[in-house]
């Protein structure tokens, strides 16, 4: 269902392979890049449609608000993860970092109840960035695979969280009302959290698309050796990507505290695979070099919407996870199919004039 549009377009746009038709082809290729996101958006639309037909209330303003609210935190995490994945790395520790920062935020308010909200959030981002910096330093300076390092740090950060919490639970009553209301309140009918997530997506999207260091991350992920030969400071960029990812996890942790109000040391357990899944569903290539934060954000939105839709549709709760898994497989399969199509269209076609 998702392939329909691009294929039809493709056939129209590439009737011949003469250099003179370069423009048409250009547009086609450009479209194909965009299409990855369109495919996910279409899937999302279809899901919403099906749900809405069954249960019209699903499209009501409060319902949409709830979906957006639910997706915001995952979106922010997926954006951070994308920044790391495009550079051919991975960060499995985000769930633990989120948990640690959420707890730290609660502790901050317990220790200093008067802390300004903005300061608390910045502190959360800072703590997350420190965690990310540790990951990044280990990966970039010790030159060891990110998967192993961040898997190890997943346990370490979680352990630190538990050791610190010692079974303590921080409740809504321990945090300022203003902070908590930020977690649920809306602006023009849209949750504040969704605005924050949107801002994060736009900023990260613009950074990756329009800034040199952002493009260099793609270059590193695409071909690390060539990146080094081009004079790109690979270690520094990868380190930076981990810091950004950690910072995002920190932001997400602070927002988690605001939204849920109840925090203990288990917050965010097992979230890492969901975040990676969101990015992968969103068309981010797991071995780096391609994919966008917009796709990842849509992937996160899609995964969250599935959760909500299945609840609204009152589908047997036991089926939900199976459906999510099937969807991940479908999404990466589709992505592969598209990539093959692009490769086929470009193959054997010398594009320079004789």
């Amino acid at each position, binding site marked *: 269902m998702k392939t329909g549009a691009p294929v039809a377009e493709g056939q129209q746009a590439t009737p011949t392979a003469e250099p003179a038709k370069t423009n048409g082809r250009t547009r086609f290729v450009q479209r194909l890049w965009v299409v990855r996101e369109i495919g996910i958006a279409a899937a999302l639309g279809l899901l919403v449609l099906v749900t809405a037909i069954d249960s019209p*209330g699903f499209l009501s303003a409060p319902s949409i608000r709830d979906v957006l609210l639910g997706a915001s935190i995952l979106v922010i995490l997926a954006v951070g993860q994308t920044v790391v994945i495009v550079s051919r790395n991975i960060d499995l520790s985000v769930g633990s970092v989120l948990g640690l920062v959420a707890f730290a935020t609660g502790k901050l308010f317990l220790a200093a109840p008067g802390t300004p909200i903005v300061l608390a959030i910045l502190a959360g981002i800072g703590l997350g960035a420190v965690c990310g910096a540790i990951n990044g330093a280990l990966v970039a300076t010790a030159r060891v695979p990110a998967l192993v390092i961040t898997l190890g740090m997943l346990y370490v950060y979680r352990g630190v969280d538990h050791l610190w919490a010692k*079974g303590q*639970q921080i409740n809504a009553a321990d945090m300022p009302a203003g902070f908590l209301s930020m977690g649920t309140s809306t602006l023009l009918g849209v949750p504040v959290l969704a605005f924050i997530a949107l801002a994060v997506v736009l900023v990260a999207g613009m950074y990756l698309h329009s800034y040199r260091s952002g493009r260099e991350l793609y270059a590193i992920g695409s071909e690390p050796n060539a990146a080094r030969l081009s004079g790109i400071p690979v270690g520094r960029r990868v380190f930076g990507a981990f810091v950004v990812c950690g910072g995002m996890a920190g932001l997400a942790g602070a927002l988690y505290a605001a939204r849920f109000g109840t925090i*203990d*040391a288990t917050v965010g357990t097992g979230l890492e695979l969901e975040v990676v899944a969101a990015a992968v569903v969103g068309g981010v290539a797991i071995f780096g070099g391609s994919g966008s934060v917009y796709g990842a954000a849509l992937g996160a939105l899609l995964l969250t919407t599935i959760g909500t839709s299945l609840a609204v549709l*009152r589908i047997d*709760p036991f089926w939900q996870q199976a459906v999510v898994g099937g969807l991940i497989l479908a999404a990466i399969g589709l992505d592969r199919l598209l990539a093959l199509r692009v490769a086929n269209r470009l193959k054997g076609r010398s594009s320079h004039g004789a």
Partner: protein
Amino acid sequence: GGTTRGSENGGGEPAASTGTANPDAPLKEGLSVAFLPKQINNPYFTVAGGGGEDAVAEFNGEYKEVGPSEASASSQVSYINTLTQQQTDVIATSANDPNAICGALNTARQSGAKVVTFDSDTNPECRDVFISQATAEGIAHVQVEMIAEQIGGKGKIAVLSATPNATNQNEWIELMKEELEKQEYSDIDLVTVAYGDDDDQKSFQETQGLLRSYPDLKGIVSPTTVGLAAAARYLSGSQYQGKVALTGLGTPNQMRQFVKDGTVEKFALWKPSDLGYLAAYAGAALASGQITGEQGQTFEAGKLGEYTIGENGVIVLGPPTVFEKSNIDEFDF
């Protein structure tokens, strides 16, 4: 239900009742008492453990709390085995799976430990006594009573439970359904049971799903602390606040805010600290020979007074406490 789970590797049937009880035996000093909750660092069990610790201090024993960070039966087994090796006198545990930890508990009993379960039971043949937070009937009754009162005895209600295989919740829900059969509740319609998996976000989503799919829902009962808090948070931020009634089992600290802002009128819970306190005393009584776990035996549980063992070795803590605006500030857990 199982047929043979109680039996353990090779060894014969565990000695369920060794010798006879001597109600007048003094409590032994220096008993080692270990609390093994479903999950360590879970605030509910932290409070229960605190009660246990107080009790152990009263009879001069050694208290410790151990357990897994994730609520899984397999990790509990490994901790029970460790406690067996350490020759612990009393193991007070809350089971993640009624069958899976059975074998390990019986091994512990064979090597001399007394096993008290609290909050969540195992099969009766694997422990000496079970401290029930309230009778299941009592819990079902109080919840039905509360919701009926809040919705005016009429309309659709739904249940937001924990995981689909949570033993306690399933038993309570069954009993609530029986309770609702009664004539006085004939106008109340239990439309569905949703599962929030004791996960905050999932419970939140499920609440939202319930209200979407049943727009005329009058009330929600959530017999689990995580579910109740999540549902309350959802309602307090939505247009349903004050319109859809919500009650169930929750802790005062988590619910205080929602009681005060009117989202929740009243809810119930036993005192977890008393639960732990009683479990510790029951364990000490077992280890001192005051009781053996037979029905009808009695023992003294410190400040809580005298308790009698019921059928199947079950000891009931007492009726749940109902919390509302007027009394909630008296509690801190």
